[in-house]
């Protein structure tokens, strides 16, 4: 796990998958990112990251239901794996330690 690092967008996607808690698939992830972060993401970009995270073993997926508005095609629902949770925790700890390491003086100048 120590060799695995998360890119900024990868981290966001894993966090959103965790937030959606069982209802995370590409379209709902895009909507959630747009609503929470006001960030427009293409379907291609999200699919690429989801596939990469799944290959890394940080997400797992299974087919969900098919609906009429999807033309009868099933969704692929994503979940965070145990390893994904570990790396999220690790990233959070690292970020917090970096924030805490900033001398107070650095921000007083601005």
């Amino acid at each position, binding site marked *: 796990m120590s060799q695995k690092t998360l890119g900024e967008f990868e981290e966001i996607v894993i966090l959103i998958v965790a937030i959606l808690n069982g209802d995370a*698939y*590409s*379209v709902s992830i895009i909507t959630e990112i747009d609503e929470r972060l006001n960030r427009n993401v*293409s*379907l*291609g*970009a999200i*699919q*690429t990251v989801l*596939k*990469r995270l799944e290959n890394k073993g940080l997400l797992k997926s299974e*087919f969900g239901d*098919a*609906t009429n*508005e*999807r*033309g*009868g*095609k*099933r*969704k*692929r629902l994503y979940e965070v794996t145990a390893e994904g949770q570990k790396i999220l925790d690790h990233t959070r700890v690292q970020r917090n330690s970096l924030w805490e390491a900033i001398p107070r003086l650095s921000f007083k100048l601005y």
Partner: protein
Amino acid sequence: MKRRENKPSRIAMTFFNWYCHPEFREEIEGDLMERFSTYSLKYGHNKANRLFIKDVLFMFRPSIVGNIYHLTNTDTMEITNQNKRLITILATAIALLLTPLIAMNFTNDVNWKILDFLVAGILLIGTGLTLEIILRKIKTLRYRILFGITLFVVLLLIWAELAVGIFGTPFAGS
């Protein structure tokens, strides 16, 4: 009309089905349809269709295409074969046109002018393209033969009329 409004661009969807790796096709096609459906409610059919095409084009990337072997497995093979056949037909037409050009260098009996080459070129290439359309659109062997023979008979009659004038039309040659 109402039916059309519920469907995204067929060309874009065909393109997507061609390049997308079969393993991802169902889920991503569903995503595309769901987004199209949302866009339609929000912006109407035309803009939804444009956004759908944009989605399809932006999706064309290595992670979605996967390995390229599947691209030659499905209808792509047929398209490649059709294109090979078209090139063969056009090459044959050009080769036939070159015959009098070469013959002119060796004998005075053949004396074509630029207009002759132009007309012959239009006739031969036109016939070749029509034959290709017939072969692409008609799948029954019997009708292929029937339409093919008709096409060649028409070509020969026009050629003969232009060359020696068998019907006496204003375009008849002498």
